[in-house]
């Protein structure tokens, strides 16, 4: 799965999640703050150096680093094409470059941080807002989103295979709809079972959520 924690003992692995998240936020602000092309290029070069150095320090192989960006390339490509059509090829290229750097940096944070540590940090950060939101519930939403991406990907793959085995096409808008509808239904059924499972494993026992039906 993309961006999932990769065990290691590097400086980045042992750094506090809060520090890494704060660093990521600062990099995002720095990347999108400059207005002039020269400023953008300068900041992007700095961010590129930080990214390469970060992956090097964390000893994460280049193929894994590239794999973090690959799924977003189609949407970044669309952004670039849009700008080229509008006659702003340079601006488009700079926007895409900054997005690539930001995604790579965000992936570096998730690759070097355990989800449980990340969640603990987010929960602690949300504590002042406890009156308005339930930090435990928000943390659980994040955990489940990360955990069930590969499960749903497997479900999609199994559905594609089942449809292909019965003569269905794997590409085209018809294939997309044929895949999307059963996948959504399976996802809804899965969510019921998972809600039961986390309830059975004691989620909310210490009052982090109120009842299962809201999970």
């Amino acid at each position, binding site marked *: *799965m993309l961006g999932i*924690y990769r065990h290691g003992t590097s400086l980045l692995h042992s750094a506090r999640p809060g520090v890494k998240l704060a660093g990521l936020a600062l990099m995002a602000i720095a990347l999108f703050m400059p207005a002039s092309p020269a400023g953008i290029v300068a900041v992007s070069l700095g961010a590129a150096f930080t990214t390469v150095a970060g992956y090097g320090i964390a000893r994460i192989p280049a193929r894994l680093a590239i794999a973090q960006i690959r799924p977003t390339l189609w949407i970044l490509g669309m952004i670039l094409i849009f700008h080229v059509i509008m006659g702003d090829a340079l601006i488009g290229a700079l926007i895409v470059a900054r997005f690539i750097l930001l995604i790579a940096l965000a992936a570096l944070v998730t690759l070097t941080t*355990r989800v449980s540590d990340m969640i603990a940090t987010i929960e602690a950060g949300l504590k002042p807002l406890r009156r308005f939101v339930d930090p435990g519930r928000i943390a659980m939403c994040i955990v489940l989103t990360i*955990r069930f991406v590969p499960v749903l990907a*497997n479900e999609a793959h199994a559905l594609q295979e089942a449809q292909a085995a019965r003569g269905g096409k794997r590409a085209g808008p018809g294939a997309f709809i044929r895949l999307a509808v059963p996948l959504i239904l399976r996802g809804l059924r899965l969510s019921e079972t998972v809600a039961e499972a*986390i*309830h*059975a*494993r004691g989620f909310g026992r*210490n009052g982090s959520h109120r009842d299962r039906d809201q999970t």
Partner: protein
Amino acid sequence: MIEIEAIRHRVEAITILHELSLTLCEGRIGIIGANGSGKSTFARLLNGLILPSAGRVRVHGQDTRAAGDSVRALVGFVFQNPDHQIVYPIVEEDVGFGLRNAGLRGDALSCAVTDALERFGLTEKRNQPAHLLSGGEKQLLALAGILALDPRVVVLDEPTALLDLRNRRKISRILTDLPQQVVLVTHDLDMLDGFDRVLVFDSGRIVADDTPSRAIAHYISLMEA
């Protein structure tokens, strides 16, 4: 000990379980029956995942309706598909999920996770993504996550349905050695060897409540009828 007093369960207009009362106090209890006979619903009633439409279930004196959280601390539940039960993406984090919910933190949490991983032979996998484990390893992880909490009763809903023969035998051996009371819903009749009592469900009723050999004979005659 689990006391089931005059329970019935309906979902909308459909009766899933007709009235039944019984006490489960044996160490190893099997539940068998056709698909849709009410086995899984019955199992879910035992730790309060489902509350009965009528009647009550008490586990070691705790009512599932009045003290659901306490009952779930007493009764661990293992689902058929471990993928639905594994919550965290990394093996050791998932084992720690239930323990954190039980209030463990710091060294106590770390020691309990390490013990559970060792017990189920998952120490080498502790830092691996859970979705990359084999089916058998995933079910072991699901079991480790439940048994790390040291529940007094373990309810398992067809835990070997997705496993190969080797992993079925592995899970069977683990269940045999457990000190806890075990309630096992299964279609794998071999797993009931050495069990104390087997209940046969049919259309929401217990139609046999006997030793494994007699109950299995009854179940087979039902299936062949």
